[in-house]
């Protein structure tokens, strides 16, 4: 919360979102639930014209969180998690690394929705995430640890310097937990987070920086942010001909259309 901005819905839909929420993306907002001032409500439903809890889209270009070394790892890994081919875009082609950068630079990366307090004993697999690291810290520590592992065991300078077959093999080792990492990094936890975040960047609305040109949605046939399918409910088995659309519209949308 705390992100309510004046917002003209039409401008928002047509592409004013970046301007509307500029500064929100990487600014220190705590979008948790105890961030707003206390309010006493009596007599009517409070409502203010032109206000909306607008989504915090990504802005700018280039990396603001990843270092050059980290970016090399991320681009290589995302390219293997979702490779590019004629069926649909790869993770890199869909701008997932940029999405990850903005996510890690913001509230998600800071762990604003994680409980990170101690103590931090190792838990059972059923107890889930038990690291002291916020997501941004985990990425940072994991990339160092993986490149160290590569240097010590695979004779290359970094993960990004490996042949793709070897990258796949190492990623599988992280996924299964067979590859053990230094620096207090649980390889399975990191891989699970990286894969989840990669799919988030691939399939989320393009306002967050990934899913470039809605290519991932087009690949699977998801029409995007439509909100009325009433006339198609009973038309079983037919392809819905709606063009793919995101919050900021789609190519071909113009003022007044």
């Amino acid at each position, binding site marked *: 919360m705390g992100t309510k901005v004046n917002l003209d*819905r039409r401008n928002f839909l047509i592409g004013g979102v970046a301007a509307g929420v500029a500064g929100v993306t990487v600014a220190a907002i705590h979008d948790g639930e105890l961030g707003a001032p206390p309010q006493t409500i009596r007599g009517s439903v409070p409502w203010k014209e032109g206000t909306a809890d607008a*989504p915090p889209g990504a802005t700018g270009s280039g990396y603001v969180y990843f270092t050059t070394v980290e970016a090399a790892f991320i681009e290589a890994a995302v390219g293997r998690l979702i490779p590019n081919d004629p069926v649909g875009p790869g993770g890199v082609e869909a701008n997932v690394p940029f999405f990850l950068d903005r996510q890690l630079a913001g509230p998600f990366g800071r762990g604003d929705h994680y409980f990170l*307090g101690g103590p931090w004993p190792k838990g059972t697999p059923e107890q889930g995430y038990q690291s002291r690291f916020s997501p941004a810290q985990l990425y940072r520590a994991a990339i160092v640890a993986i490149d160290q592992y590569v240097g010590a065991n695979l004779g290359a300078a970094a993960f990004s310097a490996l042949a793709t077959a070897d990258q796949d093999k190492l990623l599988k080792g992280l996924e299964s937990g067979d590859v053990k990492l230094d620096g207090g990094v649980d390889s399975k936890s990191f891989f699970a987070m990286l894969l989840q975040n990669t799919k988030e960047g691939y399939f989320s609305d393009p306002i967050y920086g990934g899913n470039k040109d809605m290519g991932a949605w087009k690949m699977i046939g998801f029409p995007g942010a439509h909100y009325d399918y009433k006339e198609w409910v009973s038309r079983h088995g037919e392809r819905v001909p709606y063009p793919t659309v995101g919050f900021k519209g789609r190519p071909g949308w113009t003022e007044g259309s």
Partner: protein
Amino acid sequence: MTTTLKPVDAVLVGFGWTGAIMGQQLCDAGLSVVALERGPWRDTATDFATGFAQDELRYMWRHHLFQNVADDTLTIRNNVNQDALPMRRLGSFLLGTGVGSGGVHWNGQIWRFLPTDFLTKSHNQQRYGKKAVSDNDLTVQDWGITYDQLEPFYDQFDKLCGTSGKAGNLRGEILPGGNPFEGPRSYEYPTPPMPQTYGPTLFGKAAAELGRHPFPHPTGNMSEAYTNPLGVQMGACTYCGFCEKFGCGNYSKASPQTTVLPYLLRKSNFTLKTECEVLRVELTPDKKRATGVTYVNSAGEEFFQPAEMVILSAYVLQNVRLLLLSGIGKPYDPKTGEGVVGKNYAYQTMSSVNVFFDDKIINPFIGAGALATVIDDFNGDNFDHGGLGFIGGAYIAGMVTGGRPIEMIYTPEGTPAWGLEWKHAAAKNYLRSFSLSIHGSCMSARGNYLDLDPTYRDIHGRPMLRMTFDFTQNDHKMSNYLTDRAAEVAKAMNPREIKLNRRTGSWNVTPYQTTHNTGGAIMGDSPKNSVVNKYLQSWDVPNVFSMGAGAFPQNAGYNPTATLAALAYLSADAIKSQYLKAPGPLVRG
């Protein structure tokens, strides 16, 4: 420094479904009521407008409407021999916060429990013998009320929500098109059932061919425009496929915002305070009476709100924690089986079957929270459990709530989770697959309970709640049997292939299962076996009432909302007709 405020007749702790219902009922009876909600104010037009409500990343994966575990979480373990550790990230269940709470981001699946579900112990014992209700350390109990006693209040909630559906049992007459296994309803649903999309239609056809009894899922997603008895209007659902985890931008999903608040907020005897978290219920020195609640707001200011009645209307886990923190009732001890607060925590036993077609376009993105065709043939005691080794059951639903691509892409058995093979499977199957949901009961057991954690504390310095839980052998057997029944229907649809996602192993906090936590403040017929009486009134402190699914002695194979809402109406009715005339225990312990 605590500021003491002007006394009120009733204070509501938490403002989701039960808070809204109790607020409306008690204000209409003329009481002065203050509701304290620890989360923010939320309103359809501002917070989940149709221009940006369909945002899977923000709401589902970044938890924008959910409780923030950074501020408050609980600790978890599977059994008493483990050390409980904090749930550091939401996963298995997605807790609500803010005005409307889980009532904002639920699916709108509106179910009544079966008449025999209220008699879990006595009915099953009579039909299957004593072992059936005590093996596997089960601690199931009867509720202390019957379906017939609750029915008028189920009906009241249906009318509030405008529930869309088709009655299967109208005053004892079995009607075609509805659920023939349901308890008798006094009235037909307020609005007709939703039309079914392709997936649920295929499921219903296959189920009927197998001799099952398919019917449309009863739903709080409106099939048509509706005006409820409070004069609040809802619009017809547009099937956008963003219900659960999302607010409805279209005023089509029943929630406190769309059914109660426009009416309640106009009443001069009602006040809602947001960003105000209750720390504890204050008691007189003899602990026989509550004097009010102490709360702290987001500015850090502390207040004492005196009240004649304290209504705990927060989520199950918060209500139980407040009872424990305030010293109301004797905490449960799993070693001795004595004590009641925290006893019989239960959950929901979920599994699913994915169905893949080559030749059928399912269009999963056309969805709604309760858009499903269901069979209830294997729920509760609707079938003979003789020789099966378990009690309870599940509904099986051919359900398409949406096709949100981060969460809901199904890939065939053996598909890796990443790489080209995964991408190709996603591209091939997204439009041509859907899932059957097996929504199973969860029987309470001796080792499953809630208490206060000895190590971890919240931002206010209070002990976190500690959850000790695992699925019992009873529930594993039930879930396997029910998953096989679902697979039969799946195969009868003649798909290319199916994939069974069985409920295996211990309860795991990471994958989302369902936000149907129950028990811990259970109702019953005696202070020896329960925290509250059949009117949800504390046996120990009679001016404290504890709402919600915490009252369920075990969980049935249905979504809990209608039952907990009906219990709130029943409680309000008893308060208005009996308690206000003679404040004190409504049932002698």
